[in-house]
């Protein structure tokens, strides 16, 4: 029997992987974007799980919103990356530290 705990642990694992992806990855900014997507997915999983087990459809509706926003977000992110690449000829994260104090 697969209980809610299993789902939640799965979602947590997904979330941890994505976080690890953000700060272990030092090379490629695309991977960063993918990690963020993954993070959103893990959150979405949570929504679905809770919605299923509490018999409330609102959570699943909300997931669609999030998916839509995530799609828009990644589109903008990719556009920024392209623009960045045109300027700097590279998308390596190590080179992007303009915020250094």
């Amino acid at each position, binding site marked *: 029997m697969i209980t809610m705990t299993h789902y939640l642990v799965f979602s947590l694992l997904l979330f941890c992987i994505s976080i690890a992806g*953000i*700060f272990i990855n030092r090379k490629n900014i695309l991977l960063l974007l993918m990690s963020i997507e993954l993070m959103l997915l893990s959150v979405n999983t949570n929504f679905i799980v809770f919605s299923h087990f509490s018999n409330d459809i609102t959570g699943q509706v909300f997931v669609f919103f999030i998916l839509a926003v995530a799609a828009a977000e990644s589109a903008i992110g990719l556009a920024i990356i392209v623009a960045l690449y045109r300027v700097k000829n590279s998308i390596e*994260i*190590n080179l*992007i*530290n303009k*915020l*250094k104090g």
Partner: protein
Amino acid sequence: MELLLLFIPLLLLTSSLIVGLSSNNLGKISAGILSSTLVFVALIFSSIILFNIYKHEDQILYENFYNWISISSLEIGIGYLIDKFSAVMLFVVLLISFVVHVYSISYMSEEKDFKRFFSYIALFTFSMILLVMSNNLIQLFIGWEGVGLVSYLLIGFFYKKESAIKANLKAFLINRIGDMFFILGIAMIYALFDSFDYRTIFININKVDFENLDSYFGLSYLDLSCLFLFIGAMAKSAQIPLHVWLPDSMEGPTPISALIHAATMVTAGIFMVGRLSPLFELTDFTNSFILIIGSSTALFMGLIAIYENDIKRVIAYSTISQLGYMVAALGISAYTVSFFHLFTHAFFKALLFLCAGSIIMSLHHNQDITKMGGLRSKLPVTYICFLIGTLSIIGFPLTSGFFSKDLILEVMLDNNSTISFVSYNMLLIGALVTVIYSLRLLFIVFHGDFRGGKLSSIKEQSMIILLPLILLAIFSLFSGYLIKTFVDMPIYFYGLKDIHYEGMLPFISHGILSPASIALITGFFAAKILYKDERKFKMLNSAITIKLKSFIQTKYKFDELFIYSSNKTKKISSLLASKFDIGLIDGFIVNGLPKKINKLSQILKSLSSGYLYHYAFLFVFSIVVIFGIILARIL
């Protein structure tokens, strides 16, 4: 009368303002004549007042012209208190001032700043009159500072001369040391009587419970307040150790030396103590202090005069020494005796200075007596006047100095105490010293051979110079016969000291037979042998005398003391400025704090590397920590 008293200061102030602020339309000579006339009118007014005061017995004029400050209970006015004491002083000041005005018309005629000079001396006379007329301590202080200011301006009259501008700064600063104590003394008196007014103070003096007042440094309240007032007088009247400014003040024009630094301003200290004599009368310690200061000044400053070679400086040291006599007399409460010496001294010392001025003019601004000599034949009038002045100062019988100095010595001897006996002896030796240095000056300048080149070009000055000399010579000769007036003179309502005086003839005969005459005769022969005949003695070359001589020539190192302390002040000042103000407050706190904060932010800055994954890590890490803490708290 009241109107006359108002007019005297006003006349002088107008004179000062008109001459000082006038444009070039007013010529030199007319400016000189104008201000002399105004002083002369004031002199006439003052003699009317003097005459009136003496006509009515026990009359005291007292009034306020003007309320300077009135804040609730505090009232300070400008007014006058004229009794016999101040009426005489008023007359002396105006007389000397008038004489000097006239003299200066000729003496200063070459100067570019002729009018500035006249403006100054009128302003001086104004301040001095304010001081003399004063009916309260603040007015006294205003006049006191005023004369100090004009003295400062006049010593620095030749402002391009480095020595002159050094001397005037020195004079002002040393006077300010005195003033600091003076104002403290005034504050003490005010705290006691809640008034600055002489009359209120004198009336209430018997009501004060002196036993229950605070005492400071082991001195009673009144002792300390009078001591402070006297320190003010010490600076103004050039007493040891605050005398160092007076010899240097000779950098000013000579008429000034006569007016300010001999006859009037330097005697302001004596006048002040006399004016406040009801207070000084009640102090023991301060009186002894005054006596010691006065008699040591009289003796030791006289000694310096023997070795000086600048004609004006010799007279300056003799002034200090004579002021010492006056102060010593104050110390035994013989205020009017002291005032009598002030009176006669004003004439003969002004005379000596003006004669010196005449000599200096004739010798084209040479003041070195080693380059003079034999001037007797060339400057006969000046010689006679100088001789009269000298005879007066050495106390030659029947001249004015004889009366006043002998009276001081006798009163001193009559006062039965150890200190006054010691002082008596010091003053007696001082009298001998006076004879020696005065006659030395006379012999070196007027007798012997001329040592400064050609004698033929020297000639006597014009009548404008000589008339004042003659006038002063007459006063020097005869002013001593007023002795009775001074012996009987009350100050305010107090006839303070019972002075032993039996009439003119007994006094003269007694004076001639007194030890002072021995000093006179000894001094005369010593001076004659040493400086007229210029004989050399082996004894004078012995080790001890040479040592003594060089010791006296150092002037007891008082100058060095003041130079040292002023340099020390400057050093401390720059040290404090650099170490404390800029170093500690600015460097450590004001600029140091931002620097520390800067350093801290440098450390914190390294946390923000600009890499996204660092931020993300920090973010997650902090979340974990915070949740950890919350969990730990819950569990």
